[in-house]
């Protein structure tokens, strides 16, 4: 069953009320409810002239006609419009969707495919020269590009099949004149429900697309950047050039292309955000889980330490550490990561404390499960959701923080391009050359916004209380 299928099966139900009521219970124990058993038998005696209500059968969890239709509809479409659409999509992903009447999805696939082709065109020099003079960077970029193309093609093909099946099912259901919502299906996990809610959240989806595009740009930087981000040009002829056809976003004081520097800067910013948050999350979750599950003195010790770290103003701490050592990428990542865990530790501890009292953890103990089984199988999966949300929001924050440090000259050192240093560079001539500071600034804003949109979307999707 594809995701889209499942999405539709879930539509008929509220999130809390179970799909099928207790009537799904069949009473094997005759003594329990003699009337129930008899009733069930009665319900299955065909009654001439009276169509049996669809509901009854579906509720009892038996396969219904709608089920069978859905099963046949799941076969890949063949013949007619859908055959042509498949062929078109195989050549040009997204074109088939246009034919089947879902223009938005078609346009999205077409756009993705086009953007990747544009990347090939832009980076053709590097791609063609990669066998002789390719650096590791180039290889990574080209492999990313290849995988990207493959992903779009496969995605379009799969989605097309889903759309066609959906279409067929809808038509069949419309002809039968019943509600395709209720039928027996396999379990609908918390994760798949969350995914369904996330997919309906347009801002979050936009954020997700932006994040993916940003990571693609970062990986494919050597292919996309038109100029060397570091080498200085002729200061008199190329310094402070406004945006133009040659330099889309203009040049800086030393004649370096702003766009190239932003593209390379994305690598630094995203890498710092990702790795620092990963360190913080791992450390914080571990400490929080230990504190929460073991409790007692260990808990008290860990939490007092956490409080101490939290009580110290973070920016001052960062500046102090960096002032003491030579600033470098590794140091900055470490420092940002090692000052961020207390929040996560508190969050996880709180979750673990409340989960520990949940009856299903008690039940696991009563059933003789070991400590590690309980932690790994029952605690962690249930703590994961809020941690994922915190991590996503954390990446955005870390990127801003790094930009701030670099802006103050305490982060990434020139000439390595980081968004913070780029903005700092433009500070000297804001009036005369506005583009130098503006575009890197915009990059920061868009990135942080994207991560926050995704984070909020995840929060809404993962927290059952937030789902309407």
């Amino acid at each position: 069953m594809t995701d889209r299928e499942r999405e539709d099966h879930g539509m008929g139900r509220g999130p809390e009320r179970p799909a099928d009521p207790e009537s799904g219970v069949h009473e094997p124990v005759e003594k329990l409810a003699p009337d129930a058993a008899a009733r069930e038998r009665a319900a299955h005696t065909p009654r001439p002239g009276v169509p049996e209500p669809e509901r009854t059968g579906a509720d009892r969890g038996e396969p219904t006609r709608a089920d069978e239709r859905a099963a046949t509809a799941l076969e890949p479409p063949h013949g007619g419009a859908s055959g042509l659409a498949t062929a078109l999509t195989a050549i040009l992903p997204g074109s088939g969707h246009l034919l089947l009447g879902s223009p938005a999805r078609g346009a999205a696939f077409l756009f993705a495919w086009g953007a990747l082709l544009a990347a090939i065109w832009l980076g053709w020099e590097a791609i063609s020269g990669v066998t002789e003079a390719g650096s590791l960077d180039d290889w990574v970029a080209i492999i990313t590009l290849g995988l990207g193309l493959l992903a779009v093609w496969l995605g379009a093909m799969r989605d097309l099949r889903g759309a066609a099946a959906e279409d067929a099912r809808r038509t069949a259901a419309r002809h039968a004149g019943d509600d395709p919502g209720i039928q027996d299906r396999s379990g609908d996990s918390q994760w798949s429900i969350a995914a369904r809610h996330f997919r309906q959240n347009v801002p979050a989806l936009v954020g997700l697309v932006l994040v993916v595009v940003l990571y693609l740009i970062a990986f494919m930087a050597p292919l996309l950047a038109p100029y060397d981000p570091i080498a200085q040009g002729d200061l008199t002829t190329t310094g402070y050039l406004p945006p133009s056809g040659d330099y889309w976003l203009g040049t800086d004081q030393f004649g370096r292309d702003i766009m190239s520097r932003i593209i390379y800067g994305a690598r630094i910013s995203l890498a710092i955000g990702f790795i620092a948050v990963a360190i913080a999350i791992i450390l914080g979750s571990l400490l929080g889980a230990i504190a929460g599950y073991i409790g007692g003195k260990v808990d008290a010790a860990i939490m007092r330490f956490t409080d101490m770290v939290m009580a110290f103003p973070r920016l001052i701490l960062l500046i102090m550490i960096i002032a003491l050592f030579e600033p470098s990428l590794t140091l900055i990542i470490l420092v940002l990561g090692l000052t961020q865990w207390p929040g996560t530790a508190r969050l996880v501890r709180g979750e673990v404390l409340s989960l520990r009292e949940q009856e299903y953890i008690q039940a696991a103990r009563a059933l003789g499960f070991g400590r590690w089984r309980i932690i790994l199988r029952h605690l962690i999966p249930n703590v994961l959701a809020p941690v994922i949300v915190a991590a996503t929001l954390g990446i955005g924050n870390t990127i801003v923080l790094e930009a701030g440090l670099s802006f103050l000259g305490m982060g990434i050192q020139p000439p390595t391009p980081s968004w913070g240093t780029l903005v700092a560079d433009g500070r000297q001539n804001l009036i005369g050359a506005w583009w130098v500071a503006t575009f890197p600034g915009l990059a920061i804003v868009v990135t942080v916004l994207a991560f926050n949109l995704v984070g909020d979307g995840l929060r809404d999707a993962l927290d059952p209380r937030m789902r309407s």
Partner: protein
Amino acid sequence: MSELPVADVLAAEPDEETTLPPSKGDSDLGGRTLEEVDPGDALVHVRGLKKHFPLRGGFLSRIQGHVKAVDGVTFWVGKGETLGLVGESGSGKSTTGRAILRLIEPTEGTVVFAGQDVTAMDAEDLQALRRQAQIIFQDPFASLNPRMTVGDAIREVLKVHGLARGEGADARVRELLRLVGLRPEYASRYPHEFSGGQRQRIGIARALSVEPEFIVCDEPVSALDVSVQAQVVNLLEELQQRLGLAFLFIAHDLSVVEHVSDRVAVMYLGRIVETADAEQLTRSPKHPYTRALLSAVPVPEPGRKRERIVLPGDVPSPIDPPSGCPFHPRCPHPLKDQDCARTVPPLAEKAPGQFAACIKEPAYVAPTGS
């Protein structure tokens, strides 16, 4: 409206010892106590069980007192028998049930299960105990891991105890679901896709997967509607007959407990105040608290106006329980006097097989020579 008199029955402040009438000397401390009774070969025998939770606070979480959740409880459950445990919330019912299974460590007392001392068990013995004694919980929404399918939850138990694997485990899951009246296909669904009653059935199936002899049912029907409650009660009774299970059936609803139990024990503030055969307890309660509890159960029979005994005040805190008889501040017994605040009443025999902890009820003296 302001001239209206106070709703006085309800307004009574708890009695201080000094406001009680002076001792009249009619207290009866005699009679055989429950501790002195030899229950023969009971499956579970609990003696003098206590659980005091330390109350922490302050900077370094120092112990500042104790919650006397269970304060010396004695009872037994025979093979295939149901003992009902009733009491208001906070009276220590759940704590008792969990301490018996060593889900929490008892502070004092012994629990003997099938001849073995549970309180002295090491990790290995405990693991074996988990196969014989199980528990079903109150909240059908919280007692199942929301991220595991019903089938996985049961399969996990089978795996941990090495009971079945692969195909065998699948077959067993289907069998168990059928046993509790659920469709076997439901194995691949998640808990949130079920109603409260169905979830309770899943909890029962999971507890049954280790084929226990004894199950603690901690308010298994309290969260359910009457109609669904009846379904689950019937299922439990049916399973008991079929599989010869023994139950400790905890509930706050006296009418449900009476329906399912062979014997009933009434708890108040961590102690058992009365225990007897279910029918006898209903017909002629000996403890004033049991009488009040019985009279407070609303009966769906409009014509029948019974005398409702309305107890004044609230259940006192188990951190600082009243001296002497824990019930004395609310007790409506006409003979109540200062003795009640001074003496802890023994749980003594007041009628054949009926034990109550009240010094103002005459003890039963077995005819000599028998």
